[in-house]
């Protein structure tokens, strides 16, 4: 891991738990001794609109916004959003994508179709070859609740970033309500394993 810090961009659709995931990463950064800024934009939609969160770890963080091309990691909870925001990623950076589509209403109203996987992969490939696709919803559903997909992705991220698992667990314990903690722990581990097998 780089001592100068890491910029994470998290994107998803309202209702997917994007904000909770960025809260976890922010707490983790603090525990690791970084200065941290976490900026969210949750626009007008409670459910169904684009949600983005910028999270920066560093010795001293000024701008809350990550400039285009300067994110080290893009975590996308929905694959169209991954394609939409891929250019925030540094060329060659790490893209972690939930292999899951939420079709926006505009597909019906404007006639612009939801892009096929090939187009999505090509778009990501314009910026990076380090794109990991994780079936977050399927994995979370198998564990009993599709809503834990965000934590599956965090588990996958933990494997890719090679950060100490115990620190992650302490943050999960802090941020997740007790009654959901066991589910989220299992989701986290499943995410780690999913990437281990993919790599």
């Amino acid at each position, binding site marked *: 891991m780089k001592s100068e810090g890491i910029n994470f961009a998290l994107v998803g*659709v*309202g209702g997917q738990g994007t904000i909770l995931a960025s809260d976890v990463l*922010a*707490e983790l950064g*603090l525990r690791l001794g970084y*200065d*941290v*800024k*976490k*900026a*969210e*934009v*949750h*626009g*007008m*939609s*409670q*459910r*169904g*609109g*684009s949600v983005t969160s910028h999270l920066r770890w560093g010795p001293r*963080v*000024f*701008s*809350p*916004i990550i*400039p*285009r*091309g*300067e994110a080290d990691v893009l975590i996308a909870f929905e694959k*169209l*959003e991954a*394609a*939409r925001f*891929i*250019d*925030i*990623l*540094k*060329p060659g950076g790490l893209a972690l994508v939930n292999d899951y589509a*939420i*079709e*926006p*209403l*505009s*597909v*019906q*109203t*404007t006639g*612009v*179709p*939801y*892009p096929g996987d090939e*187009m999505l992969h090509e*778009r990501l490939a*314009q*910026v990076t070859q380090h794109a990991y696709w994780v079936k977050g919803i399927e994995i979370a559903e198998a564990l009993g609740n*599709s809503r834990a997909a965000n934590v599956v992705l965090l588990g996958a991220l933990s494997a890719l970033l090679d950060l100490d698992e115990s620190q992650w667990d302490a943050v999960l314990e802090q941020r997740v309500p007790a009654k959901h903690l066991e589910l989220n722990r299992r989701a986290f581990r499943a995410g780690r394993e999913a990437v281990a097998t993919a790599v």
Partner: protein
Amino acid sequence: MKRLLSGNEAVARAAWEAGVKVGSGYPGTPSTEILEAFAPYPGVYAEWAPNEKVGLDVAVGAAYAGRRAFAAMKHVGLNVASDALFAAAMTGAEAGLVIISADDPSMHSSQNEQDNRQFAKFARIPCLDPADSQDTHDLTLAAFDLSEQFDTPVLLRMTTRVCHTSSPVELGPQRENLPEPGKYPRNLTKYCMVPANAKKRHPAIETRVAEIAAFAETFAGNRIEWRSSDLGIITGGVAYNYAREVFPEASVLKLGMVYPLPRKLIREFAGRVQKVIVLEELDPFIEDQIRLMGISLYRPENLLPEPPYPVTKEIFPIAGELDPVVVRDSGRQAGLLPGGENGGLALSMAGLPIRPPVLCPGCPHRSSFYVLHKLGVPVNGDIGCYTLGMVQPLDALHTVGCMGASVGVAHGAAVAGDKERHVAVIGDSTFFHSAIPALINVVYNRSNVITIIMDNRVTGMTGHQDNPGTGRTLQQKATRAIEIEPLVRALGFDKVVTVPAYDVAAIEKTLKDWMKSDEPAVLITREECALLPSARNRWLPLEVVSDKCNGCTLCFRVGCPAILKSEQLDPKTNRPLALIDPLLCTGCEICAQVCPRDAILFRNQVQSKQIPQEAA
């Protein structure tokens, strides 16, 4: 101890540490979490007022009574509260009084991007403009001291990026133990602003501004960071971060107080750097004041001899939020930074379907807009989730201006003689906020406006705050819920009908009946927001019977994100059949009511299908 706090949480924490007794206001993005975070602290009183003006009057009243108080609102809320602001600017108070305005550059969730620092100058009160959560915490504490030292309300002006960015904050030790205030003041020359008294106060508040300006010279929130003498940047608010990120070598004068300005400090700074520029978001607020001081700011050579009036900002854009890319590009164009490209690739968005905000699946507002679209009438809208009734395919809302405007704007069209029948739509919280006088106007001055109050039992768009209709206070005390029907009847409406919001036929029938007469009327559509916990418990995904669906597309016209086009085509029409996403559908049945072929199962049909399976 350091804790990660958002700017809004930092205000709440600092207000508690400052011994604040009362916080009031009205929800509005990006300010809402200030009062939500303040309410649980011990020893404080916090409330949602029906609107921002009432909220500020409450804070003023508490401060007159000798208790520290604040009112929090979004930028446009201060327009509503501005009468109270200007009154309090004249009187001052007995204890610290802080008004928190959360501005929204780039309009992430607003109708305009007004720069509320202007209000401070307009009302002759100091304005503090923090850069991050620690700064917010420190300036909030300073605001209460400043307010008391100079007998003035203080404007704490924040922006979306400061409100909604979390960063570490060194917490103060504990709550300040303020002495119990004395008897309520009977000071008529100070608190009764009749002309004779007000005439004496005006020169006093001009003197007050001059005294605060002198104080600003040594105020800890205004500081110079000396680095290179080549470039000096005068900045305030969130823009300080971009100054440091993009111009790491430059000297910086960081203004925590942006009105009134420390003029000596500014002259000292400007005199010791080769080039001086102002970096601020939105209006040239600091910049214009500095130009008036006769200080020459750096001008890029490639500019016109005169800036196009009235835009005096020459380097950085006046519209929209700043970010490091905007600041870097502007700096390059102005010759302040070497040329070069920004990092990364700018990819075109062509070919990607957009994902604008939409009414959520199961939203009880959807049925009314479906009917209004069908009726084809002009609809005057208001501020709230239901603004999204304008979005395709519902496309049933034609004006949106400001809080409470729907009813007055519809009435204006009616009395002007517009041939079409106007419908105003407004939510429950916005009704309480500012529609009541407008409805009185409709009845009293006799127009035929039909108003739909979409009562979803909560203040929705800002994230589920209580309002006078919910029967619960911000501090979670049960209280008497104000009933909308008797209130509307008491205003003088004879035609007042309440229907379940999911009942498409009832809404259509009522509106069609009313269209036949020329009387004003109020329809209340009632169903709790589908995202409330009690509503979530009833979620039940509906199903499409593919044998019955022929791809007629009628259900797509309700504009629900849970209804998708399936890959299966109808053999006759070759059109895609409807498909319901079980992860999104809540089972509101609007689509099932609209389907002419009974191809979408109602809740009871879905349940009766499930029970035998479960039994087996």
